């Protein structure tokens, strides 16, 4: 069975659980996400699909027993506690998405540029463009340049480029933070990710009723 179909099946099987399956074009990736595969990949050879779970804490590529290997990777990650707490909201600014992200470091490490700690925003659309039903449209990121000690909280804002040709009603937004435990080498690890909701207050939604 082709990997895209298996991934879509897994998305159905894990529906209702905290797992997201997203896809990018390996030859035209956006953001700093595919670099997490290359950081984790230690073999000289590779072939698509390139797969990472939680920023490369686990990775695989090429032809494998897709269902068994992929679900095994997901199950192992589900058993791990998060190492950050993320609260975020976004607003639509023209054809861009701007998100305000609050990140609390729950790990025992200080997050900084020394371990390449990074915050990412991923916008994906429920649409079959490549091989699965969820395509990444934008993935802006920012390195965490100010030291974030354990238990400390920081806020930052990330904004996408112009999003064109998308169905806005089918977009989802995720904020996440990752870092490189080994410093300048080795795989990255994701601290936590979170779905980001719209910050539009309910009062704005109802205002048109008042004005009639």
């Amino acid at each position, binding site marked *: 069975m082709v*990997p*895209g179909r298996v*991934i879509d099946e*897994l998305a159905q099987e894990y529906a*209702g659980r*905290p*797992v*997201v*399956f*997203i*896809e*990018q*074009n*390996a*030859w*035209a*990736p956006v953001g700093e996400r595919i670099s997490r*595969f290359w950081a984790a990949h230690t073999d000289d050879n590779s072939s*698509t*699909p*390139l*797969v*990472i*779970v*939680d*920023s490369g804490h686990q990775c695989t590529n090429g032809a494998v027993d897709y269902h068994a290997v*992929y679900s095994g*990777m*997901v199950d192992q*990650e*589900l058993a*791990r*506690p*998060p190492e950050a*707490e*993320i609260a*975020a*909201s976004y607003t639509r600014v023209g054809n861009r998405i701007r998100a305000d992200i*609050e990140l609390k470091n729950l790990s025992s490490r200080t997050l900084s540029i020394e371990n390449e700690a990074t915050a990412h925003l*991923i916008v994906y659309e429920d649409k079959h*463009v*490549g*091989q*699965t039903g969820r395509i*990444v449209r934008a993935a802006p990121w920012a390195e965490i340049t100010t030291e974030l000690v354990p238990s400390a909280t920081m806020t930052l804002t990330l904004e996408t480029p112009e999003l064109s040709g998308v169905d806005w009603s089918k977009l*989802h937004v*995720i904020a*996440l933070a990752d870092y490189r435990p080994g410093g300048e080498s080795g795989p990255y690890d994701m601290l*936590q*990710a*979170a*779905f980001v*909701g719209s*910050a539009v*207050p*309910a009062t704005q*939604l*109802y205002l048109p*009723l*008042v004005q009639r």
Partner: protein
Amino acid sequence: MRRLALTLILIFLLLSPGYPAAAQPERSGSPEGAAATQERLVLFESFMTFG
């Protein structure tokens, strides 16, 4: 009449269960916002050949 309508709308907003939630940042969970606890949200990313 207009004041009455505004009052009713205000009462509706205050009583609406979605009012405070809509203005709150969303935490980790499914796209439907089902999960609110701080469990790990696992991110599976595939990089495919499109063709």
